[in-house]
C-alpha cells in the first residue's frame, strides 16, 4: 500500500513536469535561456555565438570550388557545425517528446488575415499548407521555399551575421554595426510581411 502510494505520487510528479514541458514556454523563460548561450559558449570554449557561419563552413567543406571566400581551414570551426547538428537533434527531441498537442495560439487578426489565402491549419509550427513537398512545384511554394532560403543564405553572409551573430551576440557586446544590421533585418521583414508577402500568398 505504502509502496503503491509512492509509485503513484512519482508518476503524478513526472506527468506534471512533462505537461509543463509540453506547453509553449513564455518569452520570459525562453529569451533569457537563449541569452545564456552567449556566456556559455564564451566560457566553455571562447566561441562567439553565431549560426549563419555554419552555412559558410558547409560551403567550404563541400563545394569550395577555388572561391577565395571558402579557402580556409573549416575543420577549426567544426564546433559550429556540431552546434547546428545539435539544433536539428533538439528539434527532433522537442518535436517527438515535448510536442504541444494544441494548435499554435496566434493573434485572431492573423487567423482572419491568413484565412483569405487558405491557411487555416495552425497545428504545426510551420504551416503544412504552405511548406510541403508538392508545393515546390507551384510558383508560390517555389518563391517561398527556394527564393526565401536563398535570400536568407545570401543576406546573412552579406550582412556578416544573422539574428544570433548580430542581434544577440553583436548587441550584447555593444557593436554598433550589429545594431545597423539588426535594424535592416527588421525593415526587410516589415516590408516583406506587410507589403510583398500578401501578394506572394495570393499566387
Amino acid at each position, binding site marked *: 500500500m505504502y509502496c503503491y502510494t509512492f509509485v503513484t505520487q512519482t508518476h503524478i510528479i513526472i506527468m506534471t513536469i512533462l505537461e509543463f514541458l509540453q506547453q509553449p*514556454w*513564455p*518569452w520570459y523563460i525562453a529569451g*533569457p535561456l*537563449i*541569452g545564456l548561450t*552567449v*556566456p556559455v559558449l564564451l*566560457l*566553455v*570554449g*571562447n*566561441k562567439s*555565438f553565431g549560426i549563419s557561419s555554419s*552555412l559558410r563552413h*558547409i560551403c567550404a567543406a563541400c563545394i569550395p570550388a577555388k*572561391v577565395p571566400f571558402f579557402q580556409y581551414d573549416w575543420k577549426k570551426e567544426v564546433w559550429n557545425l556540431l*552546434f*547546428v*547538428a*545539435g*539544433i*536539428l*537533434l533538439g*528539434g527532433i*527531441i522537442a518535436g517527438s517528446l*515535448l510536442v504541444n498537442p494544441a494548435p499554435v495560439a*496566434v493573434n485572431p*487578426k*492573423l487567423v482572419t488575415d*491568413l484565412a483569405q489565402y487558405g491557411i487555416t491549419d495552425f497545428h504545426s*509550427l*510551420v*504551416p503544412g499548407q504552405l*511548406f510541403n*513537398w508538392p508545393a*515546390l512545384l507551384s510558383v508560390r511554394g517555389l518563391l*517561398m*521555399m527556394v*527564393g*526565401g532560403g*536563398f*535570400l536568407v*543564405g545570401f*543576406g546573412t553572409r552579406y*550582412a*556578416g551575421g*544573422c*539574428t544570433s551573430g548580430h542581434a*544577440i551576440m553583436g548587441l550584447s557586446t555593444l557593436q554598433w554595426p550589429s545594431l*545597423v*544590421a539588426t535594424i*535592416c533585418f527588421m525593415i*526587410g*521583414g*516589415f*516590408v*516583406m*510581411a506587410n507589403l510583398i*508577402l500578401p501578394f506572394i500568398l495570393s499566387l
Partner: protein
Amino acid sequence: MNTWFSQLKYLVIGTLFGIIFVKAEVISWFRIQEMFRLQSFHMYGVIGSAVMVGMLSVWLIKKYNIKTLEGETVVFQPKKFNKGQIYGGLMFGLGWAITGACPGPLFAQIGVGTTVVAVTLLSAIAGTWVYGRFRDQLPH
C-alpha cells in the same frame, strides 16, 4: 584539446538550444508573421530578454575578467562596419519574413518534421555560396 570528442559538448549545447527554440515557438512561421505585423509581443520579448541577458553576462565577464574553463582570457571579436550590413541585412530580413526562419530555426524546423525545409536550407547554402563567389563584385 581540439579532438572531435572534446567538441561533442557543442552538440549538447546545440541540442538544448534547439529544444528551447521549438518550445518558445520562435521557429514558428506564425510567430514571425505576428512579429512583423506587430500582432504579438512574444518575439520581441524573446529577442529583447535574450539581448539583456547576453549584455549583462558580457559586462560581468569583462568587469570581473572571468576566464574560460581552460583558463584563457575571453576574446571578443569586433565587427567592422561595411555596407553589406545594410544591403545584406535588408535581404535577410525579406527572407526571414518569407521562410519564418533565420538560419538556426531552419535546422530545428527540419527536426520537428517539416522535411521540405531541407530544400530551403539547401537554397540558403546556395545563397551563401553565390555570395562568396561574387563577393568582389558587390558593394561593401
